[in-house]
């Protein structure tokens, strides 16, 4: 557990140290470090297979060594460095961040993870990323995830994120589920810190910045977006995007006139960081690039003069876009489950009610306050918030994912609205009201988290995965060669077991339709011979000809078989939480066990595993 905590911290620290060799700003050094690690591991993996572990040790060694050498050099150069570093003035911001860390610790471990002990998970999406990371850690490499596993049917990103996970797995020889249990806390804390620093750089008021940090921690987009509590490529890209935007805001405050060459070289860290964002997630990375470009365009005098008019224009565009949701959504992807992500106005309103309660009304004083203020940066952020929110709410399937980035900007406007509503009161009254508002957000967060977690309750734990599934995975990993085995079950069981046992499955949760049809054909009425035939006909791109075929009849499998055929054929429906095997399913298992082709190799009350001989 402690190793995982440390490995999770190193997920951020090691790339930061590597990037720090080249650039000082944290966002740029982290993004550069991520890209260096990725390219080094990708290229070495292609040209020198088997060098993965050595390259990681080399990169870690160089980064740590140079970091300490730099510290020693800086201390020698400036004897007062340590005195300055620990002066009262320089400790103000870190002390507020420490305060937010305490807040984040309580909201994360005592609300979000209260019933989710180590190493259980509340993030369904991580299993596909763990699957890819496990494959990379085992020495395979590719620029796109779909070349490594058929769990990915669509390449929304490169393998940069997965390579970073694999690096920690390899360096600390740890299991990625335990690692993830901790790393999502660090991500949560960083989203809070990002909101705090963004607001601090815009409004220069600690009161607003602290409120921004707290609100960021308490607004959880519990569907499609998942900004603060899930660490997945889209949320990491948005977080990096906000840190990049903050650096851009800071650099704008530097009014010294620089020569052309310096301007060009000064843009290099920004360009590298934007490339990293794009590699992390093509769509959200593109949104980050557009947001940074839009911020720079708004900096031109022709626009800064008319920021209020531009803001009002986008308020109307946002309202117009929302009203288009009345007419239903459009799918641009052609994916089977896209229809379920065309939400319509009523569902969008319901989602935002879950995430924010009615606290979005603070956007009204927020917008008015910013329009009335003389703070140009806040006006630019308002325009960006309106543009990104408009894109997020456009009537196209999956567009709500853009809110992963937009939420930071919208929340900043909202928080300013809370401050603006009580700006004319004395400090104690203002603080009292802001405390009350934090309590309101806390109540909304409690209710939202309860709603999200309620259906995942299983054997006194709230998680998508159970203890017994973890035990089963360990047993499978210990007893079967992962390169020569294929696990077949319902999509949910496959998805969980592939990530935790590292053994291949036909598509995980994204099992192809022909393979699903083979499973659908299996029912109580058919003989074990036909069941065997159907299972053997299930195809997998990565299956070896003589692979052991393992059939997992789990509680999830039987629950999945009880869905309607159209639900079973859809990527959208899964059995999200563990299940025990019901008495009604026992006759099916007894029939299989009596057949000589099916050998029981492992069983508990959640799954019976057969090897097909």
């Amino acid at each position, binding site marked *: 557990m402690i190793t995982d905590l440390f490995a999770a911290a190193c997920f951020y620290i090691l790339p930061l140290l590597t990037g720090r060799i080249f650039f000082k700003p944290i966002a740029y050094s982290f993004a550069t470090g991520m890209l260096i690690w990725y390219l080094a591991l990708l290229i070495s993996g292609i040209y020198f297979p088997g060098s993965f572990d050595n390259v990681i040790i080399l990169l870690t060694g160089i980064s740590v060594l140079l970091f300490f050498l730099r510290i020693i050099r800086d201390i020698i150069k400036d004897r007062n460095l340590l005195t300055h570093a620990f002066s009262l003035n320089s400790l103000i911001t870190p002390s507020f961040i420490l305060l937010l860390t305490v807040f984040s610790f309580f909201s994360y471990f005592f609300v979000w993870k209260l019933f989710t002990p180590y190493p259980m998970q509340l993030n369904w999406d991580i299993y596909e990323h763990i699957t890819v990371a496990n494959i990379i850690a085992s020495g395979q490499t590719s620029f796109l995830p779909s070349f490594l596993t058929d769990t990915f049917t669509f390449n929304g990103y490169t393998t940069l994120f997965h390579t970073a996970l694999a690096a920690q797995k390899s360096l600390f020889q740890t299991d990625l589920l335990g690692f993830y249990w901790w790393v999502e806390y660090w991500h949560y804390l960083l989203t809070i810190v990002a909101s705090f620093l963004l607001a601090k750089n815009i409004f220069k008021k600690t009161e607003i910045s602290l409120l921004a940090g707290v609100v960021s921690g308490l607004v959880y987009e519990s569907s499609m977006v998942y900004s603060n509590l899930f660490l997945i490529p889209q949320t990491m890209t948005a977080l990096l995007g906000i840190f990049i935007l903050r650096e851009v805001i800071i650099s704008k405050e530097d009014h010294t006139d620089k020569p052309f060459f310096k301007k060009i070289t000064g843009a290099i860290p920004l360009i590298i960081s934007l490339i990293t964002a794009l590699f992390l997630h093509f769509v959200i990375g593109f949104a980050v690039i557009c947001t940074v470009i839009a911020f720079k365009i708004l900096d031109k005098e022709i626009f800064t003069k008319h920021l209020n008019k531009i803001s009002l224009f986008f308020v109307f565009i946002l309202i117009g876009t929302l009203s288009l949701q009345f007419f239903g959504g459009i799918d641009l992807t052609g994916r089977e489950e896209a229809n379920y992500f065309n939400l319509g106005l009523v569902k969008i309103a319901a989602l935002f009610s879950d995430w924010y309660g009615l606290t979005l009304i603070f956007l009204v004083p927020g917008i008015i306050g910013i329009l009335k203020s003389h703070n140009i940066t806040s006006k630019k952020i308002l325009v960006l918030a309106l543009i990104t929110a408009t894109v997020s709410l456009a009537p196209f399937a999956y567009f709500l994912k853009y809110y992963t980035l937009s939420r930071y900007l919208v929340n900043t406007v909202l928080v300013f609205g809370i401050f603006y509503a009580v700006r004319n009161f004395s400090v104690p009254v203002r603080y009292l009201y802001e405390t009350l508002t934090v309590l309101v957000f806390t109540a909304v967060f*409690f209710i939202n988290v*309860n709603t999200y977690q309620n*259906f995942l*309750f299983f054997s006194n734990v709230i998680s998508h995965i159970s203890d017994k599934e973890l035990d089963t995975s360990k047993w499978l990993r210990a007893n079967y060669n992962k390169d020569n085995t294929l696990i077949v079950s319902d999509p949910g069981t496959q998805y969980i077991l592939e990530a935790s046992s590292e053994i291949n499955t036909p598509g995980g949760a994204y099992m192809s339709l022909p393979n699903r049809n083979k499973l659908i054909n299996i029912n109580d009425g058919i003989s074990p011979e036909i069941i065997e035939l159907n299972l053997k006909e299930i195809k997998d791109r990565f299956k070896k000809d003589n692979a052991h075929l393992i059939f997992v009849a789990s*509680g999830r499998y039987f629950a999945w078989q009880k869905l309607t055929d159209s639900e079973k054929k859809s990527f959208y429906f899964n059995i999200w939480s563990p299940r025990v095997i019901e008495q009604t399913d026992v006759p099916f298992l007894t029939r299989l066990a009596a057949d000589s082709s099916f050998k029981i190799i492992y069983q508990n009350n959640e799954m019976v595993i057969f090897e097909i001989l």
Partner: protein
Amino acid sequence: MSLKKVLYLTVLFLISLGIISFSLFRYKPFAYYIGNFSVQPGAYSFSINRNDSSEQLVRISPFDDYFYWNNTKDHPISSADFKSSGDITNVFSKFLNGRLINRTRVSWFMESNNGTRIKYDIENISPSEFEITRTFEKTNDKIDAVGQSVIICPDCLVTDNKSRVFFTTELLTAEKLETANQMNLSPLVLSNNILPNDVEKIVILDKNKNPKMTLSTQGHIEVSFDEKWQLLEFKTWLGNQSSVSQTISF
């Protein structure tokens, strides 16, 4: 502080309360967890399930219960006749008891358009025992007796403490008699759906002869079994009381 400012602050305070209340009222949990069981509220009924499976143990609904008055028998609420249901009466206790504390009791109610309101209290009286109390908060007629109905699992068998298994005439098949024979149970065919008076305990078995639940017949006038709907009805005098209870052991 001026009156204007006080009024303004009051409005802001009320907005905050409004936001919290709005979220609490919208909160509709999928299930309420009591020990190893969960109570899942629905629009027409509620069910009791095990925590670790999707298997429904019993389902209870006013659409299945009966009222008896002046030689008349009818459901307390009939279809398309209700205006609210499926909710827990107190939103604050609903949230606080939903997960944070180890609750032992949940309430579910249904109110019809014609003025009948029934509250169901589901209480975990021991680790594997539930007491379900029906309270008739509003009724139009003077009710003499109540039929407390439970829908049991499909394919389950209704047996008693004397190793008898009950079937009804219209659904009797040779296969069922064979099943009873294999399980060493004496089949008893009910012509009028009413179970004999000497039944003390009803034991529900699944097809593998595993007991799923036990229901006591004590305190009830008669027990009937509608095999088509897998419905067991426990007829109970109401007298001057406004509530009746039944106990189910799992």
